[in-house]
């Protein structure tokens, strides 16, 4: 029996791993019933050899699928081994892994067998069992199946911390080309439905403290990058739409890993577009945490992110008229926009300058990338650097090697 489970686990985790989302944070489920677990700041319990965080048991319930999406390893026409867990097997794996401190929780997705509702019902059942029979308070992320009924969506939100529908293709056209059985509206509809339900739930919580919390970590989605010809402009505007209009908590970008000889797709062996993926994550961070507007990052004139330098530096080089910024006076919001200064350092600068005027040596100690920042700031001691042209600054910074193109990028890398 153990061999069979082990084989299923191999097949069904292998098929699930292309979903890059691993986050287990954003929830604040407490262990109030003296049960097992809680969910707060997601912990990475391990890192795979490709450097990605392992925080959740990420598996498919089954990799049988009635659909034939070209970019997906589980597509119907692909000749691979198929397997399916029972509901109880997933519950047991989750509980036993969690008890040993291997994981923060479960990320359960599935191929579509029979139909959307049939599949969704089983996903919901796993979550329900964990919560109600096992007092499990760890993190649960359920993939919602496009086309499943509203009632099932609602129930999923009741037990899960996060729900997601992967749009996978950034535009309607790509979706039509590569996933002809899928309909973009079928994907957006459940997202919108959940968004409404969550907003309504927040209102209810204000009125009745006891109202159950629906999916406290909200929704997320994933787009595959580099399988289709979209520009970064199209992708980032799509993200912008998801953040603004559907209030998604996260958008993930997954550099396409070739899994098929289909001539609509990049050939097998094509390298994964790591740098582009990393630049998109950086741009995403700028939107979510640094208060950048999407049109400050990409524009119709420059629809692609610069591969050589990060999007914050390229923004600064396009807007040199705003610099140099006086470290001892400037607003926090502007300080965080200086290349080489992250959010934490920006905060520290604003704290420390209350005590004394800051010079270069202070900045160095605080942990700022001075070699990068020096072109954009004035301090109490450093001479103002002469007026360089954007291209010159870019050259200097590239030559210093601190930002030298590193072939290995991943979402877990330091972002700035």
């Amino acid at each position: 029996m153990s061999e069979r489970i082990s084989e299923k686990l191999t097949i069904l985790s292998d098929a699930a791993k292309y979903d890059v989302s691993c986050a287990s944070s954003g929830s604040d489920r407490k262990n109030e019933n003296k049960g097992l677990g809680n969910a707060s700041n997601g912990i990475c319990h391990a890192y795979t050899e490709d450097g990605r965080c392992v925080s959740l048991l990420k598996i498919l319930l089954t990799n049988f699928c009635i659909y034939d999406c070209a970019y997906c390893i589980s597509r119907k026409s692909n000749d691979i081994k198929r397997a399916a867990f029972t509901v109880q097997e997933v519950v047991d794996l989750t509980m036993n892994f969690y008890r040993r401190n291997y994981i923060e929780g479960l990320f359960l997705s599935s191929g579509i067998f029979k139909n959307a509702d049939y599949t969704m019902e089983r996903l919901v059942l796993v979550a329900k069992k964990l919560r109600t029979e096992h007092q499990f308070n760890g993190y649960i992320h359920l993939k919602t199946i496009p086309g499943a009924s509203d009632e099932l969506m609602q129930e999923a939100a009741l037990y899960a911390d996060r729900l997601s529908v992967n749009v996978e293709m950034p535009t309607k056209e790509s979706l039509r080309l590569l996933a002809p059985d899928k309909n973009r509206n079928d994907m957006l509809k459940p997202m919108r439905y959940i968004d409404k339900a969550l907003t309504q739930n927040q209102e209810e919580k204000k009125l009745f403290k006891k109202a159950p919390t629906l999916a406290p970590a909200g929704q997320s989605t994933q787009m595959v990058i580099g399988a289709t010809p979209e520009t970064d402009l199209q992708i980032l505007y799509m993200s912008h739409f998801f953040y603004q209009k559907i209030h998604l908590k996260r958008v993930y970008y997954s550099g396409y890993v070739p899994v098929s000889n289909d001539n609509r797709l990049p050939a097998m062996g094509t390298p994964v577009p790591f740098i582009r993926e990393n630049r998109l994550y950086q741009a995403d961070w700028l939107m979510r945490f640094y208060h950048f507007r999407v049109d400050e990052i990409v524009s119709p004139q420059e629809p692609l992110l610069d591969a050589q330098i990060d999007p914050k530096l390229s923004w600064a080089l396009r807007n040199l008229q705003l610099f140099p910024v006086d470290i001892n006076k400037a607003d926090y919001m502007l300080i965080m926009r200086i290349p080489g200064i992250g959010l934490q350092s920006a905060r520290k600068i604003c704290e420390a300058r209350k005590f004394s005027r800051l010079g270069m040596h202070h900045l160095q100690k605080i942990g700022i990338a001075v070699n990068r920042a020096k072109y954009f700031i004035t301090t109490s001691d450093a001479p103002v650097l002469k007026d360089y042209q954007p291209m010159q600054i870019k050259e200097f910074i590239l030559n210093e090697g601190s930002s030298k193109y590193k072939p290995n990028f991943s979402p877990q890398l330091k972002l700035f």
Partner: protein
Amino acid sequence: MQTVVYDSSFEGFFTAVFEIYEYKIKDPDIQQQGAAHVSLFGGRHTVHTDIAKATRVIKKLEAKLSADAFADIYRVLLSEQPGMENVLFRYIQYALQAAQSVETDYSHPDVLWIRQVVRKMGREKHRMEAFIRFLKTKDGLFYATVEPDFNVLPLIRKHFEDRYADQRWLIYDTRRKYGLYYDLHSVTEVTIDFAATLNDKASLRTLHDEQEDLYQSLWRTYFGSTNIQARRNMKLHIQHMPRRYWKYLTEKLPG
């Protein structure tokens, strides 16, 4: 210079601070009892831990510092860094005489040093919370042995208590020879002399739950198959999971 010797307890340290003021000790060098550093020259003052004196210092500091900054003093004292007491003493002096709160004055070297040590402690705490792997015994105890770089057990206690409320567990620091034991009601500090048993892998195995091996091997299976070969990046892997932690990690040990 005068060496001030205390018993390495939290209260002992604050008693020392009190007495340095009380006896107007110039140039104090605070050391733990038994530390190799006790100076041959200059005088020596031995502190006898006195809760009343310690409390007075603590009260004063609590008025001057935020709860977080006060907790940082505690964290630094668990860091076992040489010279930490002297930095803390200078910091306390600075905090007590300043008109405004100094805890975020990162242009001050001692404030910055404390901040850095606290971060290191935070990182080690976090790593323990991430990398501890429990093994289940026949009688349902989940146990783990660790050897953290700093004395972080007091800092991880709450995390494990909150999370694993419905199972008995034990986390044992083999370097400092004590552990935390949770009996379904509360956590206590325990010292057990079972180092010999722990080294004998074969006899340990006989104590394990019959499904322990199964779940360890399933976890290894999962860890192996969730990796994407096309994205392999060992440098990043090792940066996140430094080799010295591998000895705890089920997924890194041969099955």
